[in-house]
């Protein structure tokens, strides 16, 4: 016999140290043996299992295939969804051909061009940030950078060229919070400063953003973190300062004197 099994041979029931779960049983037709043993331990032996091969289904039901030309009842018999006669019924017509009439794609005018230097920023509303602070996911005593926003999930998985702080839910900000983001809207900035915080617009190029958000990628490759780049002349007015690498934790305070509006690291 298998060793250490004698005790169970003697006892008529097998011990199951699961908690009594009578309330969870859904169907009335399951036969349930409950045998109280030694007072405290109640054992339940199910007659059907929680997970069996005949009780599996996926979340998405599988779609049926369309079988054309298989009888009247299917709805796709005889002409099989092609109507009656003509070139389309007998063969294929080129997509977008309108019988010789100028097709729509030639009737409508072309427009515009694609600017290779345009920047897209991911928007985040102040209300969302307030909600995350209340939930405890963002530490409001530290500086909030684009890295913390991405890690927490405020902007999703992609940062394209940076983050733009927007004003939806601005009235929920009541404490001083310090931000370092790419762009801010006027109202969002007013709301944050009214509560006593500060917003600093920083510049990161693509490489700098990668170094900010994923410094471990550089470590894995055995490279040092790059030096943060200064903004090109066209973007110089739109930002306050150069971003710092690695992700900073303390905000740089704005000096109200006109001499120095920006500080370099």
């Amino acid at each position: 016999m298998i060793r250490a099994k004698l005790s169970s041979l003697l006892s008529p029931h097998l011990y199951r140290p699961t908690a009594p779960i009578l309330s969870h049983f859904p169907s009335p037709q399951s036969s349930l043996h409950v045998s109280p043993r030694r007072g405290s331990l109640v054992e339940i032996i199910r007659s059907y299992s929680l997970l069996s091969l005949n009780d599996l289904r996926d979340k998405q039901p599988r779609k049926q295939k369309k079988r054309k030309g298989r009888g009247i009842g299917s709805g796709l018999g005889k002409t099989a969804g092609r109507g009656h006669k003509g070139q389309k019924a007998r063969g294929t017509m080129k997509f977008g051909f309108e019988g010789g009439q100028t097709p729509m794609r030639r009737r409508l005018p072309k427009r515009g061009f694609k600017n290779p230097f345009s920047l897209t920023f991911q928007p985040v509303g102040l209300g969302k940030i307030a909600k995350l602070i209340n939930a405890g996911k963002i530490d409001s005593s530290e500086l909030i950078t684009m890295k913390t926003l991405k890690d927490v999930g405020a902007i999703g998985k992609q940062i394209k060229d940076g983050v733009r702080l927007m004003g939806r839910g601005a009235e929920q900000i009541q404490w001083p919070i310090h931000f370092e983001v790419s762009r801010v809207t006027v109202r969002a900035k007013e709301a944050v400063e009214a509560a006593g915080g500060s917003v600093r617009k920083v510049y990161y190029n693509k490489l700098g953003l990668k170094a900010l958000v994923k410094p471990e990628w550089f470590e894995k490759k055995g490279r040092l973190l790059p030096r943060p780049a200064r903004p090109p002349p066209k973007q110089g007015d739109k930002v306050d300062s150069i971003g710092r690498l690695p992700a900073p934790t303390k905000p740089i305070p704005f000096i109200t004197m006109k001499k120095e509006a920006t500080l370099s690291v």
Partner: protein
Amino acid sequence: MSSKQKRLYSFLSRDCVSLAESFSSLKRDIVHRVVRWQLAKQQQGTHSTKTISEVSGTGRKPYQQKGLGRARHGTLRGPQFRGGATMHGPKPRSHAIKINKKVRRLGLKVALSARAGEGKLLVFEDLELPTHKTKNIVNFVKEMESTKKVLLVDGGTINGNLKLATQNLHYVNVLPSIGLNVYSILLHDMLVMSRDAVNRIVEHMHTPINR
């Protein structure tokens, strides 16, 4: 016996998904996908039919187009003919589907925790038998109620006595711990493992999946 089992549950609950005791919290769809993957990769896929180029016979036009009063034909091996080709028939192919390794691992965890949650998971010190007699195993299974099939999982290679004793029983199956899979777990009501097997499985679950 009960102390041994208590140790088991603290062991496994560290690694399994929370021991699900109600229906809704079990991830059935994951288990469904893993079982479907297992059965699909098992398919042999050696079904084959002949297309019109493969059916033996000539491609000559059987008779002239006009003047005979018969229907027009270009070949005697078209799909409408007896002995002709099969249109869009099956060809030998693989039915295997792809499932992420992490999903496969999660399926195993869900299956194990389902069996543990309903109390159908037993762990022994080891699964060594003194004799190769089948009678002992038969008695062991008989005295467990509401169990029709038992799966014994041992650590490394299965020892000879266990193999011989369970060989002739259709309701008892033995697997080494590497062979533990969701379909087998679901197929059998009761899962009996040795401590060595549990350790190996826990270690395997902890090794990270690398690309």
